[in-house]
């Protein structure tokens, strides 16, 4: 992990620690991923080429960054993965899908899935989330996803994991702010 990735890991950890969600302050992803959420997300981003700011934007939209206590598929289905639902969303009937038993499994899967989206030519936030959420209802969550991407110095128009000069400057300023 180079200095910029370490900075981004720190920014993600700070975001997770201070996230105000549905169950008070702090996202359980901070300690629910080892060693903490930030470095875990960076390792996944390195492996898959998917920006963690996009992943956390989707997490915010699907589960208020893991703070929503009532999720279809249990508390670990924080990205709303419909192949890990407990009941079908349209009928309410029980599925026979395997439920997640850790934040890590759910996180690994969403990075792996979005890696395949990028390989399939879907690189913008709009294109990715439209396919992820479905044609009918994707637009309502996109502003929150893009806001999260910006907050984490990501490109709100692109899901690829990359560092340009603007991001590096934003990261340096954010990290300097933590250390004051």
């Amino acid at each position, binding site marked *: 992990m180079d200095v910029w990735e370490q900075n981004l890991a720190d920014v993600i950890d700070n975001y997770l620690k201070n996230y105000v969600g549905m169950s008070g302050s702090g996202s359980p992803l901070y300690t629910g991923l080892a060693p903490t959420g930030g470095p875990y997300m960076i390792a996944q981003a390195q492996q898959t080429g998917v920006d963690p700011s996009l992943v956390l934007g989707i997490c915010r939209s699907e589960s208020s960054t893991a703070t929503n206590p009532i999720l279809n598929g249990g508390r670990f289905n924080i990205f709303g993965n419909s192949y890990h639902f407990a009941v079908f969303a349209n009928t309410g009937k029980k599925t026979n899908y395997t439920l997640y038993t850790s934040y890590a499994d759910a996180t690994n899967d969403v990075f792996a899935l979005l890696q395949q989206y990028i390989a399939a*030519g879907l690189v913008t936030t709009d294109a990715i989330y439209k*396919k992820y959420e479905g044609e009918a209802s994707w637009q309502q969550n996109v502003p929150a996803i893009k806001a999260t991407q910006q907050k984490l110095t990501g490109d709100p128009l692109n899901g690829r994991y990359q560092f340009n000069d603007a991001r590096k400057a934003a990261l340096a300023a954010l990290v300097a702010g933590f250390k004051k």
Partner: protein
Amino acid sequence: MKRFAFFLFALVLFAQAVTTHDARSGLVIHSPAGWRIDPDSSAFTIESFPANKRPPQVLVPLGGARIMVAAPSVKSIDEFVQLDRLTPENGYLSKPAEIKTTEGSIPAQEIRLDQNKVIPEGHTLIHAFSVRGRIYETYLLYRGAADKLKYEAIYYQIVSTLEFPR
């Protein structure tokens, strides 16, 4: 025999082919009629099903397929593989291959993802190759092993009829 039948099937399907002059890649692409262009893709992409039949998350419905043709902005096949992370760590298996094109049989890198954990019954086949110094990528995703021969026949037919810029 079955493979030959699917080859004939692809030929019949292409009797009413749609021709696209793709400005992004510079390619002329011949694709089967009845497939739908995905307007959300960064490259020329067609799908065998209507958009409202796509289930959330998994890109294509069971029995459906997606084919993309692209000219990624990379200088080498290795750079392309790293950019899209088509790596063994992500489950992709890669081997040298030959691919039939309008430029003759040319060397390509063939990349497959068959043990797909996050797209149930999903199969991906990718070829990356170079023509006159430019890197091209062709991509197939389908769900359901029963449709392997049908969709690969269509995919290879598209690849073999690509017209490259001079």
